[in-house]
């Protein structure tokens, strides 16, 4: 039985994640609808609960239109190259003490490194489509990703410093006494920086210039249809959900919560959904900002701010004597 675990655990996690990601789309649509005084999806199933399933079936049955001028191998591979890193990021996330695929000792670095690979798939889609909108979108994506990867990494490193470990389960365990978001000043500022750079790194409004529907139609995925389009959407949402889980783990104490221990994964999921709704709230509240404003926010505000935060966290750790709360 022992040898089965490395095969079964990823299978379960992968399917659970796909399930969560599918339903997160419904959550977002309902949430956005309520913000705009609408009801949102309501017809399919009770309260529209079967809507994601219907969407998935619809996308699977759709015709797969491939333009003649595309760079075929690149065009066909792009959705997969895009999806793989977005799924791999869940590999190191511990959903409860000892419950996860792999609790690496460089957990957070693995997460950051793998999620940085996403841009390769995005660029393959943008280039392979042989479409000016797709290419412009991919160019903007590179601009944005280069700018916001650094604040994202630096703000995620603040909890690492406070906990004194790169292992995600250690970081979660270090918050047993005090969640890092409640850590005076440093914690709150790092959380805000994390949320802002997550919104930007996920290319969501107000930072969604790469899919700006009024100018670029749908950006890098404009030539994709059917299942390939579905895979790209799935990957994007999986990335957002992965970043939400990371935020809940780094700042909100992961599985800590009242009640018996087996409720831990439930608490973790709730907190991750809270972070997801925070990101969604930002998305549906602000208008798109210009590219120079996006770059200025990253290089002139977020980057110096997160660097100062990192140094402040280091000073706190040295001053307290030992890493960890």
């Amino acid at each position, binding site marked *: 039985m022992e040898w089965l675990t490395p095969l079964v655990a990823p299978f379960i996690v992968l399917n659970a994640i796909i399930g969560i990601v599918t339903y997160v789309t419904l959550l977002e649509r309902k949430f956005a609808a309520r913000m705009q005084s609408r009801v949102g999806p309501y017809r399919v199933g009770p309260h529209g609960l079967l809507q994601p399933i219907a969407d998935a079936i619809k996308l699977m049955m759709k015709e797969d239109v491939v333009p003649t001028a595309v760079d075929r191998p690149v065009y066909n591979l792009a959705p997969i190259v895009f999806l793989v890193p977005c799924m791999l990021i869940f590999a190191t996330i511990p959903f409860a003490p000892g419950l996860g695929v792999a609790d690496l000792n*460089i957990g957070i670095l693995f997460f950051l490194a793998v999620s940085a690979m996403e841009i390769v798939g995005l660029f393959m889609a943008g*280039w392979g489509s042989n479409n000016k909108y797709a290419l412009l979108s991919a160019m903007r994506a590179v601009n944005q990703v280069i700018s916001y990867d650094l604040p994202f990494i630096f703000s995620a490193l603040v909890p690492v410093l406070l906990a004194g470990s790169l292992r995600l389960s250690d970081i979660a365990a270090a918050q047993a006494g005090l969640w890092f978001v409640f850590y005076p000043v440093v914690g709150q500022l790092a959380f805000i920086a994390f949320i802002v750079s997550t919104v930007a790194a996920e290319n969501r409004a107000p930072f969604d210039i790469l899919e700006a529907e009024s100018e670029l139609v749908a950006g890098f995925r404009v030539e994709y249809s059917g299942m390939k389009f579905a895979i790209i959407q799935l990957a994007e949402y999986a990335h957002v959900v992965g970043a939400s889980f990371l935020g809940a783990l780094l700042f909100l104490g992961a599985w800590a919560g009242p009640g018996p221990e087996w409720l831990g994964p439930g608490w973790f999921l709730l907190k991750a959904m809270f972070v997801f709704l925070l990101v969604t709230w930002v998305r549906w509240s602000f208008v798109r900002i210009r590219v120079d404003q996006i770059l200025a926010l990253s290089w002139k505000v977020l980057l110096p701010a997160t660097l100062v935060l990192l140094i402040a966290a280091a000073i706190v750790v040295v001053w307290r004597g030992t890493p960890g709360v």
Partner: protein
Amino acid sequence: MSADVLAFWFLAIVLVGSALAVVLTKNLFHAVLWLALALTGTAGVFLLLDAEFLAAVQLLLYAGGIVTIVVFAIVVTERLVGERLSQTSRRIGGGAVVAGGVLALLLNAMRGQPFPAARPEMAGDLTRLIGETVLTRFVLPFELLAVLMLAALMGAIYFARPDE
């Protein structure tokens, strides 16, 4: 054959194949994608040798960062400026001779060296050890490298500034 050996041969084939593809494909963009695969394969080799930290940094900096910048450069020159770039490997013969020479040199250096049959057991947390040695024993080279990078950065900005 153990899983380690199997994984090594798999990675070796991927690495050599993609590295050859980098220099032999005509399409410059495809070459960069092969390069990304080769760099990811290198990260796999690091992972196989229990150097997780190096593997993660390899992915983060090379496969994520460097490839992105190279792709950016190609797109700016080829698609937006309109200049058609294609990779023409004109001196395949000469290249093969140089590559063969390097191979012979490496084999010569390695010959007679005893290779341990088993990987040495790594003691303790490697990532922690890397951090500690870099910031204690090797702190001077580390800082010098940082200064070098800064100088390179300033140089790049100097050359990139618009003409007055």
